[in-house]
């Protein structure tokens, strides 16, 4: 799916699969690349471009960093009152189990 209808690189590049990947294209297909869903020919163009472009290598690293950092975000726990009421519910449940 095209991100925008008239992105410059799309107009300019046509659909020659052997053409060099532009940086502006790379930043739009990077998620497909990381997800392993980029078609094989585009994957080769992506890798070939990365080999020669420090800016895009940095970009890829930054996207990987964003993913890693997101995975380190901590979540706040439930309210102590909710936790207490859950533990009381557990005790009631346990007692009802043993009575059966």
């Amino acid at each position, binding site marked *: *799916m095209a991100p*925008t209808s008239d992105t410059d*690189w799309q107009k300019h590049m046509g659909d020659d699969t052997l053409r060099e990947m532009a940086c502006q294209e790379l930043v739009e297909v990077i998620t497909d690349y990381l997800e392993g869903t980029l078609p094989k020919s585009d994957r080769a163009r992506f890798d070939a471009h990365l080999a020669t472009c420090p800016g*895009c290598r*940095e970009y890829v690293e930054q996207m990987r960093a964003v993913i890693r950092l997101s*995975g380190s975000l901590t979540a706040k726990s*439930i309210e102590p009152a909710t936790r207490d009421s859950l*533990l009381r*519910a557990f005790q009631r449940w346990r007692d009802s189990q043993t009575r059966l």
Partner: protein
Amino acid sequence: MPVTNGRYESAVTLKTGDRTSEAELIHRLRDGDEAAFTWLVDTYSPSLKRLALVFVSVDAVAEEVVQETWLAVLTGIGRFEGRSSLKTWLFKILTNRAKTRAVREKRTVRFSELGLEEVDGPAVSPERFLPSDHPSFPGHWSTPPHPWSGVAEQAVLRRETMEVLRRGLEKLPRSQRTVVTLRDVEGWPAHEVCAALELSEANQRVLLHRGRSRLRSILETYFAEDA
């Protein structure tokens, strides 16, 4: 928390249970072992609440959804056969309850429709690239990203940076925020996200792409100001 050893390592260690100890936990839970229940509640409630808040907007409602989920676990644990992991079962109960509440709150939004309207603009501003009619390097960086050079690795240790990321995530359009939360924050595989949100694989990727790209841009701005 170690973050340098691979993409999901820290997330996986914390967020996926070990199947053997899980069977033990389930056994102890059925036996009425309060310590086992307490451990489960303390371990999974933060993630459950974060997930609930993806579907319902009010914090108190999210609390209730988490509470209902644990009560459903107690009622259902006798029938739980362990075909899926306990964690998967838990999150499935929560997702169903949270969605029901979202319908009651009239916040029900079809992701398949909403998602694409929210797909806005390119991942990186066109001004950062050379024009498409540039004689030698059309569409190549004119302003390449400034190297973060390890700053992101130290970032996890810095509360301020993580706050910037957290706020950035909160400000994403809802469908992007939901997909990024499930995929990158909670570490769900793509197919589970698609199933939970009734999204196609392609649309899931578009939303993930927009969300991640936006977060990168927010951090880039923050690191640039910081430097």
